[in-house]
């Protein structure tokens, strides 16, 4: 199939950017979206033009590096799918595809489709961990965790930190991302000791790094490639209220 791509091109953080049009010819329906872009880039390089710069790593849907808004939806809108796992069979011959970077105040564009997501790292640095003594590996069964609790924590831990929730949020808020880590750690015995401190520090870091406030649109859950539920935001809100009285 042949496609028309409208791709956001921007030389640097301070440079103005704009959508540029490219043709993707003879695209196989079995190709992934990133493989299609690779071929477009091959053509651009052969003709002496700058290739389209985009983030990618594992190409297995688990690393959270790929970050493109495709036709107005982060990761392209296929349920629980990252860009790298989106296949060209989802498109039709002659389709026009708009490809843009994550857009939020906290995500400055580095080049083309790559944004700086280190603000998310700073939220994690503020409390997305448990403090523990180093030493020998602890016995896996030393602290017993009931299965439903372990399942709940694992559902929250499924977050790959890609930032689609922030890109989709009309407020550029990082509540789903932050709440996934807060809920995961607050539900486990190892994380409960620092739960109050963690929720305060992580939400403060969210605010300090230019993310907006959650107003419960739930766009984040709809765009999340891992289906992280907004129930974790409710859990964060409960943890925050508990922290207020500590």
């Amino acid at each position: 199939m042949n496609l028309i791509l409208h791709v956001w091109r921007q030389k640097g953080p301070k440079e103005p950017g704009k959508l540029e049009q490219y043709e993707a010819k003879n695209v196989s329906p079995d190709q992934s979206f990133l493989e299609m872009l690779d071929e477009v880039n091959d053509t651009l390089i052969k003709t002496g033009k700058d290739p389209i710069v985009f983030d990618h790593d594992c190409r297995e849907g688990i690393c959270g590096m790929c970050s493109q808004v495709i036709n107005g939806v982060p990761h392209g809108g296929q349920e629980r799918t990252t860009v790298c796992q989106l296949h060209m069979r989802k498109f039709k011959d002659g389709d026009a595809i708009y490809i843009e970077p994550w857009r939020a105040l906290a995500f400055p564009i580095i080049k083309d489709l790559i944004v700086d997501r280190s603000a998310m790292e700073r939220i994690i640095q503020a409390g997305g961990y448990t403090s523990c003594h180093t030493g020998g590996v602890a016995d896996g069964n030393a602290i017993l965790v009931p299965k439903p609790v372990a399942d709940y924590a694992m559902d929250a831990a499924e977050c790959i930190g890609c930032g689609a929730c922030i890109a989709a949020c009309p407020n550029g808020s990082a509540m789903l991302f932050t709440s996934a880590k807060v809920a995961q750690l607050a539900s486990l015995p190892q994380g409960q000791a620092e739960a109050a401190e963690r929720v305060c520090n992580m939400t403060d870091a969210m605010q300090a790094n230019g993310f907006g406030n959650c107003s419960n649109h739930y766009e984040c859950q709809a765009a999340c490639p891992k289906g992280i539920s907004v129930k974790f935001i409710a859990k964060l809100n409960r943890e925050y209220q508990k922290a207020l009285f500590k």
Partner: protein
Amino acid sequence: MRILTGSVGRKILMSITGQLLIIFVLIHLIGNSTIFFGPAGINAYAEHLHSLPPLVWLFRLVMLAAVSVHICYGVMLTLENKAANPGAYAVKRQLKASFASENMVWTGALLGCFIVYHLAQFTIHGTPDVVVGMDAANRVDVFKMVVTSFGHALISLTYMIAMVMLFLHLSHGIPSFLQTMGWNNDKTIPVFSTGGKVISAVLMLAYISIPVVILAGLLKL
């Protein structure tokens, strides 16, 4: 104080003040519905209500405080949210956000304007349509005042539009306050979302029924 400055803290204050205002909306509707019992109903209710001035003023002060906090933080959070999202997508497809959720600040602003007008009209009696008088039992004739004012189609229409704003504001506001208070999980999210819309629609229709009944001539002087 974290609750006054934090991202989540300020939302909790929005939620608590929003809940107080929803309780007021319910109490006010129950009070208003005494109009269906004629002058004897609403005039007696109004006299009873105003027979305890300290309680009335305490209630008014709590409501004023709740509205002020709700408006201040609503505007502050909205401005921060606009700044956090440059909103420059060439193509953007909404997946879940609704007209109501995206326009909370505007439906809220229109409701705020309506509250000022409504107080000027029926509490301060400062609008030209208001007829102030006493009934046969020497009580303030609220029935005559309301029926006369709502007899003007434009005044009734303004009221109905304000109630549509109330519906939009609460249809997102009710599920939103439950989420912000943390009283939510996977099972309750769809229930609260639908329940919020149903409760808001019932409130809107109940409030609108008063001018409709008056305009239809079913309640007359």
